[in-house]
Structure formats: structure tokens, C-alpha cells
């Protein structure tokens, strides 16, 4: 008896829909999936993998329907529009033993400044690296100095230090794997991630 009455109430209220999931390809067009690990308080092991689909949640083995010609609802499209832009990565290079970006990297600094300025509530993560020339402790110090040099330059351009952090990774994360004491322009770098 409760069932039909409940259903009528739902119709009158225009919904009472249970939780739902819309699964979409990521920005690179790759389709991931979402697993249902629990449904209605019980363990489940279903996988929702159909891209551009809509699935009602709550069932241990839910079935997905394609979004079809109607596509996304207006409020769903608005949610996607309001997503922040993806993180963007910049690379700056250094001559052996120095902490000032190479002449060729000066243009990257300008692009970096423009990118940070264009973002709302930006966050900037600066990571310094070295090649394998010199001792590990020296390279930890040098990579930290490279990162701080970039951070200080950005601070000089007017960006608040609370937006930014700098760490040095020494020779632990080589871009171009090498033996010890090998000079490598590709490894002498600072990566800046802007979110």
C-alpha cells in the first residue's frame, strides 16, 4: 500500500528521484569508469563504464542509459561550465651550476606571469631539479635555490607569496636518466604548475 502512495507523492513533487550518476569522457577524450562499491548499505561490485550515460544509484547492479539526443540537462551543463580550468605546467631551464633561467626560458617566465594573472584564486607550485653533476647535498641546495629564484621573480611581479610554494628535489627526479656526474640541460630545470 505504501509503495503506490509514495510513488504518487513523488509524481506530485515532480521527482523524488534517487541519486544519479552521469559518466562522461575526460577532457582528453579518454573514458574512465566508476565502480559501485556499496549500494543501500550492502557491498556491491558493479562497474559503470559506458561513457555519456546516466545511471540511477542505489541498486547493487545498476543499469546505465545513454544520454541520448536530449543530452545533458541544463543544470548539468552549467556544472561542467563552472569547472575550473585544468592545471597548466611550465618548464624553465638553467645553465650548469646557475640559478638564473637561460635566455631561452625568459619567454616562459612571461607566459607564466600571464597564466597566473588570468586565473581566479590561483595556486602556484614550483619544483626545482638538477642534473647529476656534483654531490647530492649540493644538488638539493641548488634545486631549492632554482625554485626560490623563480618564486622570488614571481613575487617581484606582484604575486602574493601565499599563492606560491617552492621545493627542491635535487637529482632525484631526472627527466633524462643518467649516470652520476653527467651534465644534462634537460635535467637542469624548474617545473611550475599553475592551478
Amino acid at each position: 500500500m505504501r509503495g503506490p502512495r509514495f510513488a504518487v507523492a513523488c509524481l506530485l513533487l515532480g521527482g523524488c528521484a534517487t541519486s544519479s550518476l552521469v559518466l562522461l569522457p575526460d577532457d582528453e577524450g579518454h573514458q574512465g569508469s566508476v565502480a559501485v562499491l556499496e549500494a543501500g548499505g550492502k557491498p556491491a561490485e558493479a562497474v559503470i563504464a559506458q561513457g555519456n550515460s546516466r545511471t540511477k544509484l542505489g541498486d547493487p547492479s545498476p543499469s546505465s542509459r545513454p544520454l541520448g539526443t536530449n543530452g545533458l540537462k541544463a543544470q548539468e551543463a552549467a556544472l561542467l561550465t563552472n569547472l575550473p580550468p585544468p592545471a597548466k605546467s611550465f618548464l624553465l631551464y638553467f645553465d650548469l651550476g646557475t640559478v638564473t633561467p637561460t635566455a631561452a626560458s625568459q619567454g616562459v617566465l612571461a607566459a607564466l606571469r600571464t597564466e597566473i594573472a588570468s586565473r581566479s584564486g590561483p595556486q602556484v607550485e614550483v619544483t626545482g631539479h638538477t642534473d647529476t653533476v656534483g654531490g647530492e647535498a649540493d644538488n638539493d641546495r641548488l634545486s631549492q635555490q632554482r625554485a626560490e629564484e623563480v618564486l622570488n621573480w614571481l613575487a617581484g611581479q606582484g604575486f602574493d607569496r601565499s599563492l606560491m610554494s617552492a621545493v627542491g628535489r635535487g637529482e632525484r627526479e631526472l627527466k633524462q636518466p643518467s649516470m652520476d656526474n653527467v651534465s644534462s640541460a634537460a635535467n637542469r630545470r624548474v617545473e611550475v604548475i599553475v592551478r
Partner: protein
Amino acid sequence: MLRKTIAVAALAFLAVSPAHAEIARIKSSVGAAGIERGAARLPAKPGLQLNPGDTLVTGKDGRISLSFIDNTRFSVGPNSRVSVSEFQYDRTRQKGSFVTQVDRGSLAVVSGKIAKSGRDAMKVRTPNTLLGVRGTKFIVEVPE
């Protein structure tokens, strides 16, 4: 002279010390939009840093967008209540765990490095379901 050295050292420390326990930053907000942190309620202003345990709350005209330090991105719709129940991320190893609870409303997610770091390292809980995120973009809706 010594005092000057200490001051310079302190400045250098400030320059390199990362923000405390920061896990995400508010990128934008419109309408009624706030963060519940324990008993405190903060306006969801762009640039506000999130801590683990924070709850994002919007009213009927409210929206919030935010980016996490593992590159996960959120867009919270109107009439929503979304908690970041757990967030741990090792920036060096690019591994972690992430649990989000959607009590009501709507949330769009583009998953980041945590979801890639291990099977079901990122989970989303709704009132009737626990989801394991395996690297993708999706929307969860929980009507009241």
C-alpha cells in the same frame, strides 16, 4: 647583525614553507556559498584554502568551483552539501586517498592524480551508494 641574519632566515623560511595542510583552493563562487569548518562558517571566496574535513555548502543560487593539489577539480551546484571527509596526498610520490561525501545537491568532478594512484583511492559517498572513481569526469546528483 645576528638579528638581521635571523630576520633574513625567517623570511627565507616563509618564502619556501608551503601553506599549512592546504588541500584545495576555491577558484570561484556565486550566490550563497560557504565553507563549514568545525563550528565556523567561512564565505567561499576565491583563493580560500580548504582543509580536510571541510564542508562546501550552497544555497539555491549558490555555486562553488575548486581545484585540489592533486589536480582534481570540483564544481558544486546549487542547494548542495558536499564534504571532503578524507584527503591525503603525498606530492612527491603522487599517491593518496580521497573521500568525498555528497549529502545533497550536485557535484561535477574531474579526477586527478589520487584517482590514478591506486584502485579506488578516490571514493565518493552518496546517501545510498559508495562509488570508486577510476579516472574520469562525472556528475553526481542527490535530490533532497
